């Protein structure tokens, strides 16, 4: 089993990896996306969850509603589609979440007050608690989550997903005082008097932006955030049958899809942007349309029409452009292009704004023209010493992960201020990224079908707030994770050991190794796909993987023979199998078969090309009666080129074994389509019988 601690992984990567994976660099919290995906690809789900949680305070929420810039930057975009990094995180948090932390042994006397139990506040509290500070969160609502709970509909983010992660934070000793509002129930002065050494403000943006047009005062005109808040708190809201949402962002989609679930007859969205310009993910727009939302793109609101004080529709103008030549938001309309969209309810979802009433009489805290709190960009300290701020109240409009990142950074800054230290988190350091996959290499990398998210059927969606995305099964998660190209963690050449034999250049199926500019040692660039062929073929053992996740089976083979019951098993067969062959996962390795379970110990490797032939000899040397290699069929190889190598290496080992007089049946190589189906079971069971017979003859 995987023996390295996560800290080990990080240490090794820092020393070996010159270039960081773009998915990691794109993430505001620098989540170890590549490595948790790689752990899932190996069926190491618990380890993957732990790696996620080390960096991420709210994995269950991020796995659902993160805007996943990691996927936008994923290098798989060059060959087919990006890895579903966020959905994989959700898979982990749905099935493998656990409290990975004990309370810290070293504690500090200072107490920290955190205002708001949203992403920024929770992240700050989590990290400060782990550093040894006693934290209290003051939350004006009766539940945690901030805008996740008030703003995001339940069909996208079930509340237990928030509560589960918050509970782990609470178990670190963080206290959350609900129904406690800054400026009303507590003030900066009262908190200081209570002895809090630092205060972090993470209150978010609580109000919807106003649309100053004629008719905005009519009944039936609602503000998006208020509407969502009401529905999220009570399960319903007072709206009519024909709802029009104004806005083209994520909140507008949330309002529209929420309205659909409230027994409406028609829900439309009108926005300034064209379909391509809309500031939300394609997926959200597609789902909204799929559920029945009607989109009016490139229309601007002129005035709200009404009768007897009630809204009856929106008069619109056709949009010439939304952004001017300097790419500033500066919409222009065609004159005389008025038309009307009828509606009895109009929801304004054109952005959020802060509510700074808690800053009354706190003139020392500088506020921007956009009504956000101004902080030092490095320390997150406001203009009032000891008071810090982060998240949307600073960003104006940020994402969940940006909020988390600010909370995490502020936590380090608060610690440094209190302890007079200069601690920093190297994960945020600037690093070069693995460059885009070279065009010439794109056709060499096998296209792998992206896994679809199973969805709630349309008929079930519109009558409830049940979660729409149903989550990955372990098999689907592993298949999806196995598409990952392991960017930046592949092979590297130790130039002190390289003898310049050119073997790596010749054997690489992706033409990655090269001799650059007259250098006498080989260089393996970021396009390495981690097949491991060069590592095994290098006669000088000068090539290694940058990441210890690639253990090539050796450590697990060693561990296997340290197990007393295994040593006593007779006959004992070690099966090296290709994990790309089928998503064999967790402990459920192979079909239930008593013979196999007892006699066949399985070691899965992502590509058998990275297994040295000497390891097969080691298995026999250490006590196995037989070695069974089950590799993928030639046309099913993930790396497209391992079949020939596995055949050659098997012949090499077989040749030696026959030279020393061993029965050929103790070392078998089979090319199979599945590592769990009946064909595999037959092969393995037959081999057990063969070896029983050989041993019988021997003992006779």
């Amino acid at each position, binding site marked *: 089993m995987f023996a390295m601690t996560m800290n080990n992984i990080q240490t090794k990567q820092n020393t070996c990896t010159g270039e960081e994976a773009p998915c990691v660099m794109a993430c505001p919290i620098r989540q170890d996306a590549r490595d948790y995906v790689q752990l899932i690809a190996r069926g190491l789900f618990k380890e993957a969850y732990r790696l996620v949680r080390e960096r991420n305070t709210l994995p269950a929420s991020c796995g659902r509603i993160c805007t996943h810039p990691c996927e936008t930057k994923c290098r798989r975009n060059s060959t087919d589609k990006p890895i579903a990094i966020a959905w994989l995180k959700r898979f982990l948090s749905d099935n493998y979440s656990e409290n990975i932390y004990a309370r810290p042994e070293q504690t500090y006397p200072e107490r920290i007050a955190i205002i708001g139990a949203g992403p920024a506040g929770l992240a700050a509290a989590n990290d400060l608690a782990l550093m040894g500070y006693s934290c209290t969160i003051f939350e004006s609502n009766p539940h945690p989550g901030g805008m996740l709970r008030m703003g995001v509909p339940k069909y996208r983010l079930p509340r237990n997903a928030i509560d589960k992660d918050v509970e782990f934070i609470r178990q670190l000793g963080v206290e959350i005082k609900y129904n406690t509002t800054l400026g009303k129930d507590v003030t900066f002065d009262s908190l200081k008097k209570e002895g809090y050494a630092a205060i972090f403000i993470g209150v978010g943006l609580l109000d919807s932006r106003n649309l100053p047009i004629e008719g905005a005062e009519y009944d039936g005109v609602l503000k998006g955030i208020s509407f969502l808040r009401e529905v999220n708190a009570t399960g319903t809201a007072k709206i009519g049958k024909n709802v029009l949402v104004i806005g083209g962002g994520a909140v507008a989609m949330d309002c529209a899809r929420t309205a659909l679930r409230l027994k409406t007859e028609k829900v439309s969205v009108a926005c300034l942007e064209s379909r391509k310009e809309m500031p939300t993910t394609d997926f959200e727009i597609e789902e909204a349309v799929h559920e029945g939302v009607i989109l009016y793109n490139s229309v601007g609101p002129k005035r709200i029409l009404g009768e007897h004080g009630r809204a009856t529709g929106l008069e619109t103008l056709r949009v010439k452009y939304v952004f001017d030549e300097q790419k500033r938001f500066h919409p222009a309309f065609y004159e005389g292009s008025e038309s009307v969209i009828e509606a009895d309810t109009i929801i304004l979802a054109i952005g959020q704004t802060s509510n700074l009433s808690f800053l009354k009489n706190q003139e020392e805290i500088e506020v921007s023209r956009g009504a956000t709190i101004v902080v030092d960009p490095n320390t997150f300290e406001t203009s009032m010493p000891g008071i810090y701020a982060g998240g949307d109240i600073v960003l104006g409009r940020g994402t969940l992960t940006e909020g988390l990142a600010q909370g995490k950074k502020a936590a380090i800054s608060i610690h440094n201020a209190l302890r007079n230290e200069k601690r920093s988190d190297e994960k945020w350091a600037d690093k070069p990224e693995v460059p885009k996959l070279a065009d010439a290499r794109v056709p060499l990398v096998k296209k792998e079908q992206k896994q679809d998210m199973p969805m709630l059927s349309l008929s079930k969606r519109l009558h409830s707030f049940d979660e729409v995305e149903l989550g990955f099964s372990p098999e689907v998660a592993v298949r999806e994770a196995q598409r990952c190209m392991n960017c930046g963690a592949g092979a590297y050449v130790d130039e002190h*050991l390289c*003898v*310049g*034999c050119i*073997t790596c250049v*010749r*054997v690489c199926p992706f033409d990655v190794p090269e001799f650059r500019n007259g250098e006498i040692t080989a260089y393996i660039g970021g396009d390495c796909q981690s097949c491991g062929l060069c590592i*095994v*073929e*290098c*006669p*000088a*053992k000068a090539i290694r993987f940058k990441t210890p996740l690639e253990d090539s089976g050796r450590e697990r083979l060693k561990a296997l023979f340290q197990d007393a019951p295994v040593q006593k098993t007779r006959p004992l067969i070690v099966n090296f199998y290709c994990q790309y062959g089928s998503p064999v996962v967790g402990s459920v390795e192979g079909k239930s078969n008593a013979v196999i379970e007892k006699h066949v110990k399985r070691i899965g490797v992502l590509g058998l090309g990275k297994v*040295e*032939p*000497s390891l097969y*000899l*080691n298995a*026999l*040397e250490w006590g196995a009666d037989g070695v069974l290699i089950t590799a993928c069929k030639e046309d099913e190889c993930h790396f497209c080129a391992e079949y020939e190598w596995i055949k050659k290496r098997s012949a090499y080992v077989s040749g*030696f074994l026959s*030279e*020393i*007089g*061993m029965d050929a049946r103790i070392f078998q190589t089979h090319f199979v389509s599945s590592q769990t189906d009946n064909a595999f079971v037959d092969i393995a069971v037959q081999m057990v019988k063969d070896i029983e017979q050989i041993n019988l003859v021997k003992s006779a």
Partner: protein
Amino acid sequence: MIVADAKPFNEIEQMLSGCKKVYVVGCGSCVTICHTGGEKQVTELAAKIRLASKLKGKPVEVVEGSVLRQCEWEFIEETKNVVEDCDAVLSIACGIGVQYMAERFPNAKVFPGLNTTFMGAPTEQGVFWERCAGCGNCIISTTGGLCPVSRCAKSLLNGPCGGSQNGNCEVSEETPCVWNQIYDRLDAQQLLSTMENIVPPKDWRTGAENHPRKMVLEHLVMK
């Protein structure tokens, strides 16, 4: 490079019979590049020795190692402690490296794990061909840059012979006839007339007929 081939394993077993602890030592130069004496091959040979000896009920302990070049006193010095601690040294360097180990460690049993075969080069991954016989008097300026001494089965200086068949040597169909190749090259370079010159018998005293050979670079010798 010097090319060497792995000895049959039963020969190695015979050499090592009676040994309980063996030092298998590779060489990081020519034999690494020809995939018979590198660190990888040390690991494989060590596993083979352990497995085979275990099967026979007389397990042998194997110490694995490799040096940059076994043909340098300075580099093999680092192996001293291990050599003294083992019953035998199985060197998978070329014959030069094996002898250097033997000369440096007079009390050690030093055995060759490889058969040193020729000076050559890889023509493709895993395929090595002889290119030089070390005759001590290079003549390839007159043969289109191709060496008939090392590449002709008969080392003919006035070829080809009648055994040249469709561009290949009669000795083996997979061996190209170097005199055929020489002809083609000279023809392409419009130097075919060179072939009309009869080359007199070669003085072989500069080559393998005159063992052991020695070279002294007076300007480098330190007195």
